[in-house]
């Protein structure tokens, strides 16, 4: 007779896995990808596919060099590749995109220990490095429905400030390939929330803060949240599990922080857009937010150490 298996409880597990979580995120990004393909043409699809492929390739290469098990199956590299592509102008040369995914996967993620150990969102770091390295190529904003033979560029609506709300909502405007269509991004966000992959805390806090702060600063709040990378950043990057706070309270603080920094950069700094920087900065303070928003156990008795110390 075979020996009986002895293992600690629980003996059953939920069917959710890391790769299923990542697959849900990819599905949620698809409406924005489709919108982008309609607005910017086939090259949007090509560039996204290229970023996904190179991100997975860098991940596998790192696994081999670092003698680690193959981690491409968890699909987190595919999500990173897709998010980075969404943050690029559609006209960006492929070799530059490959550098972006290298920075994201190899430097930001794998060198820190792989999935779960990166301190900052890999796609954000990839975008920021590209923006600082290739400022002109990274700010070539093709007009919607452009002709591939004669690319006409325009400033982003954030700079021009003259786009219609409906154009911004649908995404008929210049900008990064995945960030233009607010409605497609919102659709993806609703899907993630419905599938319980993300909680709405951080996105609502982020978008809400941008709206309120802009209005208080005398700008058009609705215009500010619909243009630029706020929707993409709030829904898909401020909700990244690894680099944002783990408790609901922490997520709200994170979202508010992102919103304030975004507005400050947009209104009073030389850079036109601040979403990436705001998320990166808040990524860095995430461990501290976590430390101060630790949940108290039900029925736990906590001694007030600091006060006792002073009394002595």
């Amino acid at each position: 007779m075979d020996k009986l298996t002895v293992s600690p409880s629980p003996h059953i597990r939920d069917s959710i896995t890391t790769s299923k979580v990542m697959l849900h995120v990819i599905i949620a990004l698809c409406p924005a990808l489709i919108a982008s393909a309609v607005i910017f043409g086939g090259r949007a699809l090509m560039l996204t596919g290229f970023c996904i492929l190179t991100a997975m390739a860098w991940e596998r290469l790192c696994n081999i060099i670092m003698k680690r098990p193959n981690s491409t199956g968890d699909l987190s590299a595919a999500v990173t590749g897709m998010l980075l592509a969404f943050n690029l102008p559609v006209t960006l040369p492929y070799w530059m995109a490959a550098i972006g995914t290298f920075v994201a996967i190899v430097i930001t993620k794998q060198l820190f220990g792989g999935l779960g150990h990166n301190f900052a969102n890999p796609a954000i770091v990839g975008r920021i490095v590209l923006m600082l390295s290739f400022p002109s190529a990274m700010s070539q904003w093709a007009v919607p429905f452009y002709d591939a033979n004669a690319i006409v560029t325009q400033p982003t609506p954030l700079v021009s400030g003259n786009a219609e709300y409906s154009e911004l909502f649908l995404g008929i405007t210049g900008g990064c390939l995945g960030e233009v269509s607010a409605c497609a991004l919102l659709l993806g966000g609703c899907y993630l929330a419905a599938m319980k992959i993300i909680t709405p805390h951080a996105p609502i806090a982020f978008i809400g803060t941008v709206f309120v702060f802009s209005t208080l600063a005398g700008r058009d709040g609705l215009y500010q949240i619909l243009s630029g990378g706020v929707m993409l950043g709030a829904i898909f990057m401020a909700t990244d599990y690894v680099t944002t706070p783990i408790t609901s309270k922490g997520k709200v603080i994170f979202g508010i922080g992102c919103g304030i920094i975004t507005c400050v950069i947009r209104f009073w700094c030389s850079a036109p857009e601040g979403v990436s920087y705001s998320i990166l900065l808040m990524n860095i303070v995430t461990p501290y937010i976590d430390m101060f928003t630790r949940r108290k156990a039900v029925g736990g008795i906590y001694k007030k150490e600091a006060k006792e110390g002073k009394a002595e």
Partner: protein
Amino acid sequence: MRLNGIILPHRKGTENAETVAVPCPETVKIAMSQHMGAPCLPLVKTGDKVEVGQKLGDCETYMSCPVHSSVSGTVTAVSDMLLANGKSCKAVEIACDGLQTISKEVTPPEVTDKASLVKAVRESGCCGLGGAGFPTHVKLDYDESKTKIDSLIINAAECEPYITSDYREMIENADGVINGIKKIKKLLGIESVYIGIESNKPKAIALFEEKLAGEDGYKVLRLKASYPQGAEKVIAFNATGRIITEGTLPSDHGILVMNVSTVGFINSYLETGMPLVERRLTIDGDAVKTPCNVRAPIGMKLSDILKLTDTNIEGIHKLISGGPMMGMCVYDTDTPVCKTNNAFLAFKKPVSLKGLTVESGQTNCIRCGRCIGACPVGLMPAELERAYDRGDRAALNKLKINLCMNCGSCSYVCPAKRDLAEKNQLAKGFAISK
């Protein structure tokens, strides 16, 4: 405020299976340690004749309760036995004569007040039948001058998947359970009684509501069918809104929590004087051909019970005593039934729980926070795991590792398939070690 819980598939396929008494086995092996506390010392020796209900072992320690014979026959050996927790104890092996002669010791006790109830419950060998095996007389023997119990909570949540033995107790022995509750309520002078039943057992809720209609001081609670609803702290909070704080007992908060089967048994003991010698067990799992509820004598070998359900014992991969969330693995099919058992689940190889993944590859923690959302006592399992891995005792204590009840919810929900519950158990021991 609301305590967290997770939604599990119920799989209560045996809920309509009426309890069947198993035929008297040929041999039984009765362990001297079936409860929480000091093990009993055997009172019989090899060659002695024993009868049903005769005391086989007892112990003078307060935190203990006696063990009785479930069969009539001859003692063939007093041997050593390895328990599931790794400790060993004495066990009395009996060859049954099949007559099931009832011992003269079995007479209904005289119970008039709290002290006599405590004494009777001790003599009955009763311990918490929900699984922990806490000696019931210790629970009832609180100091009246210091503690005022105003709420009796009858725990009939049965939140673990598969198990239906408490449900069958409620359906088959509703009057016995209600009489038991009334007796305890009267003898201890408790004002309100809450009977907590999960909403996935509508028949039991309707039955108890009907039987207790018009009586003051009784309330049937329809609890949400979420896990771990039946954990003492959780059901106490959901019934009364009181939080059992760290280091205190329910009685410190005026609460007495008793399992429904325990109450049913106490009633039958007060009526007949027959001590705890048999248990109702749910036998289920995909290796069991005819899942059922059985009434089995304590000490009966598991393999004898499984044979009665046409189970191919050779084909069992994993055998669990208790539910799939908190149950312990049995390493030997000849393990005898003990007082605290309420179910045995047998699974084939490879373990397949109909769509529920059981063993799959681990990835790094992705900090999704699902474990934090699942923990009923508000712990942070992901942080605990990290603190344990770096050997940080101070952080473990600060994160209140001692409050973990090992319900397994964190491991269940983890998409990275981390063994959080197992780590918590290791960390609990590590945090108090020097």
